[in-house]
């Protein structure tokens, strides 16, 4: 087999710590995420996995007393540099939240919300973007006849795919998902997972999940967080069959969590 040079990491954390006031929520995390992989983060609640995800688009900045140490690089740049343009960073790393949060507007206006903020106004461009994003999340066929109706009238699963479409419209490089299917039924969950598999080609995906089976189904590599520490990281298959750390084994077998 031909030896290929490994691609440079898309995201690199080096000794990255995060604090809320005096409390350390992430302790010296060091890991790499490679382009076009689905990288999942698993761990019990309170392990810091969501905090890590929210550090990546600097959403933790919104919380008072939030503070970081160490380096967190996206495409080779430390995003906690003072020169970082946070607005652009957030466009590059689209985020989907645990509960779908459609804004109280029409389906169409939800999809193009971020794009409008970025200054795209011509209706032809917006129409194309909206259709393209909705097709990528297989929502187009379901909503194409009622783009003008309120997004709040969609089902939970549809709302979550709408939220995904909303960030795709911004043409991000990364998709960050924070337990995106925790409130959804199995069929909606399956649709989202299928969509993520297809999106892998064009995006680097980081998936925080409480559902270890979900990580097993779709993640290329997985990291296990516990109490703000990274216990281990590696290919999902290997971690699920032969975890290197006793605690990972215990968690995967459901002994705690």
């Amino acid at each position, binding site marked *: 087999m031909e030896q290929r040079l490994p691609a440079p990491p898309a995201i690199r954390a080096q000794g990255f710590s995060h604090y809320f006031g005096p409390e350390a929520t992430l302790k010296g995390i060091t890991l790499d995420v490679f382009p076009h992989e689905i990288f999942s983060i698993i761990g019990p609640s309170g392990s810091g996995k969501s905090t890590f995800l929210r550090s990546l*688009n600097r*959403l933790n900045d*919104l919380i*008072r007393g939030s503070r970081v140490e160490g380096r967190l690089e996206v495409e080779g740049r430390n995003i906690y540099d003072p020169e970082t343009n946070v*607005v*652009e960073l*957030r*466009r590059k790393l*689209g*985020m989907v*939240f645990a*509960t779908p*949060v459609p*804004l*109280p*507007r029409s389906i169409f206006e939800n999809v193009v*919300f*971020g794009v409008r*903020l*970025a200054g795209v106004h011509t209706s032809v461009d917006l129409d194309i973007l909206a259709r393209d994003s909705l097709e990528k999340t297989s929502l187009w066929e379901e909503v194409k006849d009622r783009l003008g109706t*309120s997004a*709040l009238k969609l089902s939970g699963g549809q709302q979550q795919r709408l*939220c995904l479409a*909303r*960030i795709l419209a*911004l043409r991000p490089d990364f998709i960050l998902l924070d337990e995106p299917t925790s409130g959804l039924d199995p069929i909606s969950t399956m649709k989202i997972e299928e969509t993520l598999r297809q999106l892998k080609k064009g995006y680097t995906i980081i998936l925080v999940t409480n559902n270890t089976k979900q990580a097993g189904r779709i993640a290329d590599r997985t990291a296990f967080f516990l109490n703000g520490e990274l216990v281990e990281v590696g290919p999902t298959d290997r971690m699920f069959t032969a975890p290197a750390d006793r605690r990972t084994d215990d968690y995967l077998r459901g002994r705690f969590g």
Partner: protein
Amino acid sequence: MKPRLEQKVATAVLGFFVLVTVFILVFIIVFILRKGLPVLSWSFLATNPVDMGRAGGIFSTIVGTIVLTLGALVIAAPLGVGTAIYLTEYTWENRLTRVIRFGADCLAGIPSIIFGLFGFILFVTKLKMGWSILSGSLTLSFMLLPTIIRTSEEAIRCVPASFREVSFSLGSTRWQMVARVIMPSAVPGVVTGIMLSLGRAIGETAAVIFTAGSALRLPTSLFSSSRTMSVHFYILAREGISMDNAYGTAAVLIIAILGINILTYYLMNKYIRKYS
């Protein structure tokens, strides 16, 4: 048996309280309308007072009320809503925000006649604006500020935190978030607060009589002295000029306030339905 008896007593007592409240409200409105409605006519609304208000209508006081109140709102609404946005979205909770909030609460508790005196000293005499619509509007706007700030703040705080996160995560600046996500959701609450203060402004007498004066002529500029309906009512009744015309004025006032409230509720319901 005892909890059930308690329950019955509680229901009866609470029901009685509601009855008393509704009765007082209805009594006041019916009393004033019964005395005032017979006086009302098209010419009462459309002609200026004659002979200090003994005869003629109340046209100039209607104009005075509208101009003075709108003037106060034009000044107080942007200041108040802006302050509320700053307090909720642009700063963390700290000593300064607590001082501002405490100040607003104190301001809300000051009797209106003190505002009138303050407005008289500052605007009418020191700044040489005289008894004028401008002095009156400025004074009134100070009185309305606390209500507008606190109700707007409440309304803005009620917008779910998740909307802010979503907006930021989609690459909005803080101002874009405020303008496109927070304010559209907060508008019903903000407008309700402004309407509440509008009701207070229309009925205000003490602060206005000191600052806008009580001229019966139709105002011609912002520097004209003018009489509002409530001041007119006060003077007519207090000096025994014409109780009939006083009640007529009061009826117009009450109908106007009821009308504004009904219109506001109607528009708000329409708005809320459109956005949710």
